[in-house]
Structures are given as structure tokens and as C-alpha cells.
């Protein structure tokens, strides 16, 4: 089952190469739908009380080097896998209704990217994770470079230069991570049989001296991917170059792989280093929140507004994880899904707006709501979810994150809370600029067509469903998250009571780890 989930997109992509040009789009949508179906089936069959791995698949892959092909689902990755399947269906379907040059290669690469992304979420072998993590970049390199937009006319750079920048930035982290992963396994093995199984490595553990540098090698890879403040240099150019359906899934899912990596690998494998560097990472996270928000205020390109808002949101998620409290990490997982579900529709709406207005500049947009009330309503829901309106699932996510942060580091929590306020500003600015105000000359305002509705409405329905029932996620992730966080805190941290009972748990206390 889990093998089908992982390889179905690739298989469909390969077959698609041999189909006639016109059939390849619908075929790719079918592939994404089949994957989504499998993912939904696995979510239904998931045992929500179990904190361990489920649907385990494990066979030796390169026995000489100790690498296993091992996949599994647990509370940490279940909903990220589902998110991947949902967003890819949306992105591929949106692209299928449009004409792209060389459609066979385009859809092939989209589906390869889905397999790679699912692989990095599912992998339970450290090296397999690194492999998929690096491999994710390859299809996006081609998608962004070959189908992207050159920005030389606007004083920017070409698509191929932008993607080169992106790939070099992200691989700096990834390659160091490869060295760090191998070092982790060899140090744990201590002359014995080398294994890269994350489960086995957790049990053995490595000394603090090695943990320190290995921690930063991993952190570099994950922080670049998000991207975090100071490591985000590739983001503006890449976001402006990317074709929008690919950007929707890229921004919606790939950034989360970095945050997920912290939860899956860094916390359980390097617990002492995590505690030691907790505050440094929190500072980076807060800087991302503030910088991302401020940049999102000032940008006029709608892609960059969404891009910088992602930097801020990912800062929130990182802060939640590094609160090192179960609440914070619960919130982070929930927020990863929430953010994916709002940012992908934003990029699809940007694509729809681009077709109508011919511009991505928010100053030249506006007045759309009058003639296109449905589109405006959909956009409004997405925008309100982005700013974490009470009642939305994003509100719950941010509440959990802040709750975790208050329990751990109250000072950081106060700063982080300003980010919530700022998100209201940039989300509303984006919505108002595009939908309200006076209609500029020459702008075509028309209602969203059925083709785009088919893509957009289900995504918005997912946002609404989660707003009504966030427990769907929290109930299933909480056992695994508690287990992961307990590895760092040694079980001394108060367990999350919020996830099971809706009552407060000491959320004014400043209780650094080690005081208990």
C-alpha cells in the first residue's frame, strides 16, 4: 500500500511520456487522484491512538552500506503526506486545463516531484530521506528553469539563473546534510554494523561533541529549504521565475519538508544539541517572522507577498517545534498543513488574476470583486485563514504554537505574538489590493470559470473542513509528537493536555528545560 502511494505518481508520469500530447494532462490528473485516493485510504486506516510507525515497509537496499529501503507513516507525516497528495492534485489539475509547451515532460516532472516529495516524508531511513530530499530539487530545477518566466525586462534575472541560484543555495545545506547523516550512522555504529534506520539511531544516540556540528549541518539544510531569515536569498528570484502551478505545490509542500526534518530527525537524534541550541534557532525563527512580515507589507509583486508571508509562517512553525513542548509541536504540525492549504490556493488565485489582469503587481490590480463575487469569496476565505482568523484552523495552529512557546520561553512568545497581528495586515492588503478598490483601465473582470473552480473549491473546502474539525489532525498527530518531544525533554515536560482535553495548562510559566 505504502509502495503504491510512493511510486504511483512516477509510474503514471512514465506512462504519460508515451501518450499523445492531448491525453497527457488528464492522465497526470488521474495519477495524482489515484495517489490522493491511496493517501485518503491510508488515513482512514490509520490507528489514531498509536504513537509508533504504521504501514511499515522495510527491506535492505544497499546492504554493503547499511542503507535500507524503509517507509512508514506515523502522526508526524500522515497529514503532510495527505497534504502533498491534495496539493499536487490541485496543481496538476490546474495545469492540465492550460497549454504548456512540451506538456509530456512538464507533467512527467510534476509527477516525479510528487514521488520525491512523498519519499522524503515517508522515509524512515536517514539516507533514504537525504536522497529524496536532494532529489526533490531536480524536477523543480527543470520546471522552474524551462517553464519559468524570465525577468530581465524588469531588472531581474532569467529563469535559468534564478533556478541555478535556488539549487546551489539549497544543495549547500543538503550536501552537508549527506556528510552529517553518514557521520551520524558511523559514530553510532562505533565500529559495528552500520545502519541508517532512524529508529535504530534514536536508540543508540551519539555524543554531544559530535551532535553539535551534526546538528548545524542538518539545520542548515532545513533552514535553507524553508527558507529562514538570512538563508532566503534564493527565494525572491525563484518565486518570480517559477510557473505558478509548480510554485503552488513547491511553496505549499517543499518548505514543510524542512520543518518536518527537524521533527523527524533533529529532535530525536540530537536531543542534547537541540536543547543547547534551542534559543539560537528560536531567534532565527523570530527573525523570520518579523522580517517575512515586514517584507510582505512592502512588496508589490503578489508572488513575493505570498513568498515572504511563507517565510513568516515557517518562522512560526519552527518556533513551535523549538518550543520543545508537545503543544508547540502539535501546533507546528497542524500549521504546516494549514499553511500548505492556504498558500497553494493563493498562488492559483494569483495565476487566475494574472490571466485576467496581465500583471502581478498589486498596484495595478483591483476592483475584481464586483464582477466576480465567487472568486472574491473564495479568496476572502483563504485570506482570512492566512491571517489566522479565530474560527479558522490556522488560529488553532498558531494558538497551540504560542501556547507551547509561552510554556517554554515567554519572552520569545511575546515577540512571536506580534507576528500574528502583522499577518492580518499583509493578508488583508493582498486581498483588498486585488479585489477591492477602483478597477483600473483595461482590466477584465470576469467570474471564475468552472475549470478553475474545480481546482480551487475543493482546496477551500479543505480549509473550511479543518476549521470545523481540527481534531482530525491533532488527535492523530499528538501521540507521535509527544513521543518525539519527550526524547528531547526526557519526559519531564508537561504533556499536552490541550490535545485531549480543552483545558489550560500552565501557560504563563517561564519554565526552561532542565528546571523541572
Amino acid at each position, binding site marked *: 500500500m505504502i509502495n503504491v502511494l510512493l511510486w504511483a505518481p512516477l509510474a503514471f508520469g512514465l506512462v504519460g511520456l508515451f501518450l499523445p500530447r492531448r491525453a497527457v494532462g488528464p492522465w497526470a490528473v488521474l495519477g495524482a487522484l489515484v495517489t490522493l485516493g491511496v493517501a485518503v485510504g491510508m488515513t482512514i486506516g490509520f490507528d489514531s491512538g498509536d504513537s509508533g510507525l504504521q504501514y511499515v515497509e522495510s527491506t535492505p537496499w*544497499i546492504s554493503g552500506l547499511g542503507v535500507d529501503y524503509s517507509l512508514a507513516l506515523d502522526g508526524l507525516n500522515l497529514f503532510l503526506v495527505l497534504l502533498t497528495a491534495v496539493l499536487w492534485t490541485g496543481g496538476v489539475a490546474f495545469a492540465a486545463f492550460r497549454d504548456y509547451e512540451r506538456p509530456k515532460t512538464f507533467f512527467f516532472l510534476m509527477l516525479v516531484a510528487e514521488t520525491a516529495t512523498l519519499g522524503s516524508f515517508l522515509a524512515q531511513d536517514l539516507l533514504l530521506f537525504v536522497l529524496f530530499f536532494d532529489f526533490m530539487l*531536480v524536477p523543480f530545477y*527543470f520546471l522552474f528553469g524551462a517553464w519559468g518566466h524570465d525577468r530581465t525586462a524588469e531588472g531581474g534575472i532569467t529563469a535559468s539563473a534564478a533556478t*541555478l541560484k535556488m539549487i546551489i543555495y539549497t544543495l549547500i545545506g543538503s550536501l552537508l546534510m549527506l556528510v552529517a547523516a553518514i557521520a551520524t550512522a558511523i559514530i553510532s555504529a562505533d565500529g559495528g554494523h552500520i545502519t541508517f534506520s532512524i529508529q535504530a539511531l534514536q536508540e543508540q544516540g551519539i555524543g554531544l561533541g559530535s551532535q553539535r556540528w551534526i546538528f548545524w549541518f542538518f539545520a542548515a539544510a532545513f533552514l535553507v529549504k524553508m527558507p529562514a531569515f538570512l538563508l532566503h536569498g534564493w527565494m525572491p528570484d525563484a518565486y518570480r521565475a517559477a510557473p505558478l502551478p509548480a510554485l503552488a505545490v513547491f511553496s505549499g509542500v517543499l518548505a514543510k519538508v524542512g520543518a518536518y526534518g527537524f521533527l523527524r530527525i533533529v529532535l530525536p537524534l540530537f536531543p542534547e544539541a537541540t536543547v543547547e541550541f534551542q534559543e539560537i534557532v528560536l531567534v532565527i525563527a523570530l527573525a523570520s517572522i518579523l522580517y517575512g512580515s515586514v517584507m510582505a507589507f512592502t512588496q508589490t509583486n503578489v508572488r513575493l507577498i505570498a513568498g515572504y508571508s511563507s517565510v513568516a509562517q515557517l518562522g512560526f512553525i519552527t518556533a513551535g517545534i523549538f518550543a520543545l513542548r508537545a503543544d508547540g509541536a502539535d501546533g507546528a504540525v497542524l500549521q504546516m498543513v494549514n499553511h500548505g492549504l492556504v498558500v497553494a490556493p493563493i498562488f492559483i488565485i494569483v495565476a487566475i488574476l494574472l490571466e485576467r489582469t496581465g500583471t502581478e503587481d498589486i498596484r495595478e490590480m483591483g476592483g475584481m470583486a464586483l464582477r466576480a463575487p465567487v472568486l472574491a469569496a473564495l479568496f476572502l476565505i483563504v485570506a482570512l485563514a492566512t491571517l489566522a482568523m479565530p474560527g479558522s484552523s490556522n488560529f488553532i495552529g498558531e494558538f497551540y504554537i504560542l501556547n507551547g512557546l509561552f510554556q517554554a520561553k515567554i519572552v520569545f512568545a511575546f515577540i512571536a505574538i506580534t507576528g500574528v497581528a502583522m499577518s492580518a495586515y499583509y493578508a488583508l492588503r493582498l486581498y483588498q489590493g486585488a479585489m477591492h478598490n477602483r478597477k483600473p483601465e483595461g482590466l477584465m473582470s470576469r467570474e471564475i470559470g468552472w475549470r478553475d473552480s474545480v481546482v480551487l473549491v475543493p482546496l477551500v473546502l479543505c480549509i473550511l473542513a479543518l476549521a470545523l474539525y481540527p481534531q482530525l489532525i491533532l488527535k492523530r498527530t499528538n501521540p507521535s509528537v509527544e513521543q518525539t518531544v519527550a526524547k528531547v525533554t526526557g519526559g519531564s515536560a508537561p504533556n499536552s493536555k490541550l490535545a485531549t482535553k480543552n483545558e489550560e495548562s500552565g501557560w504563563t510559566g517561564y519554565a526552561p528545560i532542565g528546571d523541572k
Partner: protein
Amino acid sequence: MNFNEPHIDYAGISPLIALTVGICVVLLSAVFRPFKRSAPLLTLITLGATAGLLIWQWDDPKNLITGALRLDDLGISISLIAVMMAAFCVLLSIGERATEEAGSGEYHSLLLGSVLGMVLLSQATNLVTFFVALETLSIPLYILCATNLRREGSLESGLKYLIVGSIGSATLLYGMAFLYGGTGSTGFQGIAAGIAHNGLDGDPLILIGIAMAAVGLAFKTSIAPFHQWTPDVYQGAPTPITSFMAVATKAAAFAVFLRFFEVALGSQLDSWQPALAALAAISIVVGNVGALGQDSLKRIMGWSGVAQAGYMLGGVVVASEAGTSSLVFYLAAYAFMNLAAFAVIVARERETIFGDDIRAVRGLGAERPALAWPLTISMLGLAGLPATVGFIGKLYLIEALVEGDYTWLAVFIAVGTMISLAYYLRVVAAMWMRPERDAVPGGTPAIAGAAPEADPVDPEAGRRWYLVGPAVLAAAATVFFGVIPQPLVEFASHAGAALF
């Protein structure tokens, strides 16, 4: 008086016999008119027979010719890589001008001569066989580099290679003299015993010998700072020869590098290990930085070869079974990746007027997918991206380095790989993406590389089976062993077990 007939293990030396017979037959075939066109076929038959005989001897280690050669899995695996590269070189040479100008029989028998040197070198366990084999390998290559008679670059390449190669050989020979002088033995085992017996541990005599031998081998494997000839020679030589030279020479030289340093000089580990590690690091930096900004594909491959040699030297540095296995694995991986790239370069050289300039592959993705995919896979593999054998090769090397306490060198490999992306991906971008600058309008003669009038354009070259076939096969192998690396890992670990 008693005459003892020496014991000759004919089975063990059968690959060498097959090659020698092949050289004579191919050379003579050119003389007889009816067989004039059959030199490539005869060469392929010889190489096939050699490969068969080598595989027959697999997993049956033994000493040959009173210990002058050692036939073990390390030697056989390296020889097989050399034979494979030679076979593909024959295919790529079909229709190459150089074979016509130099004479097909001579060209192919020289190629076989070089292969003979490589097979010998990969088995050498004696200073004399070591040196003789190295020269047997080199001299035909000097000539082959210069076979494209009408091109100035080719002659220059041959001459340059001759001079630099001779300096390398002379340095090596001088170093050998020191070692022989100190230990009184030419056998690798004898040298190790002599060092221990004569109390020469850390003796200047031995250290000078080691240093000079290392420099000599560094010339052959194009390790920086002894690499200056590489880009020029790679660019000037006929492209099929470049492809052969880039991989097979490296493979054979690394085989003897391993054997010499780990068998004969194993006791002096502490003195040569840091020095070789430094050379590896320099090579990685110099090669990768040098490749940036190159416009000739063959020069890019040359500089990248310097960097790749630096990665591979890491396998020698750690002096362990894992190191040796990882080196053999990387060499095999390198063979596939290079082959795919060079096959495409040959095809485009004949097909376009741009020679080996990067403009020759511009827009290849739309125009000739059957060539664009192999070159793309090759570039991604050389850059070490996952799902190619290049990633597994790097993984293997890094694992060996970390295990051998050379984590810093592993970090160098990671950093070098990062730099390398800038030029490997430039080639990929040229094939699939819109050009960075406006393309020079077609019809303008190439500036870099060959003078266009010397190489007539063959517009169908991109469809010829003997060019597309090797490219597709090698690219398929690159992906196959990237996804299912186990067979190649076993092949390499056999070779690694031979030394330790």
C-alpha cells in the same frame, strides 16, 4: 645440471596474450586489402575475448610471473573498466576523421596497446612491471592524441601530453630508484619487508621516494597541482580518445596507486596520508573552480576530471577496504557518466559547426531528446544528484572517509560538489532552457575548439546507432545503478577485499 622448466600460469596471463595477439592481428589487417575495413570489428572481438578471459579469472587471486604481477579482483575490475571504455571508444571512433588519417589499423592497434598497458598496470606488483606497464599505457596515448593530423590542437595536445607525461614518468622513475636504493627490492612486498628490516621507518631516503612517486602518479591521474596539461590535452585530442583517456588512464593509475601505496608503503601511512589528503583537497578546489566559466565542453570535462580525481584520491587516502571499494565503485560510476557525456559531445561535434563549444548542445532538449537525456543524466550524475550512480558513488566515498577519520575531506567533497553544480547545470540549462544571452545566429563559424573546415558536418550524426547507442546505454546504466546499486557495490567490494 638441472634445468627446471618454469611454471607458467597460462590461464592467468591469457588476457594479456589475447590483447597481444589482437594488437598484431589488427595491425596486420590493415595491410591486407580484403580486411582493410575490419580493424574496428577485430578490435571489438579482441576486447570481447579479453573481457571474457578476465571474467573467467574472477575471484581466483594468484601471483603471476614470479610475483611480478598479481591477478586479483582489484586488477580484474579495473581492467574490465578499461576494456569497456576501449570498446566504446571503438564505437565512437567510427566515422571519426582521426582513424582515417592515422590509418584505421594503426589507430586501433595503438588503442589495444594502451589497453594492454592498463591491464598490466592494474596487476603490477613490482617496480619494473609498474614502470613498463605505465609506459606501455602512455606511449600509444601520446600518439593517439595527435592522430587528428589536420588540426593544430590535436598535434599540440599530443606533444604537450608527451612532454608532461615524460616529466611525470621521469619523476616517478627517480622516486622508484630511491625506494629500490633503500630497500634493495623491486617487489612491492619486498619493499615493505625491506623498510621494516632495514629500519627505514620515516627515513628521508624513503620519504623522498614516496614523494616523487606520488608526484609521478599525480601527473598521470591529473591531480592538482600536476593537472595543467589536462584541459588542453582533453580538448585537443580526438574526442573518442579523450573519453577513453579520461576514464581508463585514471582507473589504471589509481589501481597501481592503491597497490603501491598500500602494499609497498603501508607502513609509512602516517607520512603519506596527510600529504595525499592535501592533494585531494587542492584538486577538488582547483578542478571545480577551473571548470567555471569554460565554454568548451571538453575543457569542462577536463577540469571536472581533475575535481573527480580529487574525490577518488580520497579512496586511496583512507587506506582501508572500504576506501578501495569506494574508489573502484566511483571509477565504474565515472566510466558510465563520462561515456554518456562524451558520446553526445562526439555526436554534436559532427552534427554542428560549433565543435565542442557549449553552443553545440543549445536547444538539444527539443531537437534531439535521445541525445539530450543522456547528457542531462550524465551531468546530474557527475554533480552527484540522487537517482544516479554518481550519488551512490559519493555516498560510498564519504562513508569510507568518515569511517577513516577524514570527515574534513568529506566536507571538501560536499563543498566541491556544490561548486560543480554551477558548471554541470550550465550544460543542462543550455539544453533545456532559454539561452542566457541571445544566441549567436547560426552559420557563424565556431571560435573555440576545432577549425570548422577540418571537420565536415554530418547532419545525421545524432541518429547514428554507434553514437546514440553508447550514450543511451551508459545513461541507462547511470540511472539503473543509481536505483539498484547492489550489483555494482558487490563488484566493488570484491575488488576492495583483494588488497586487505
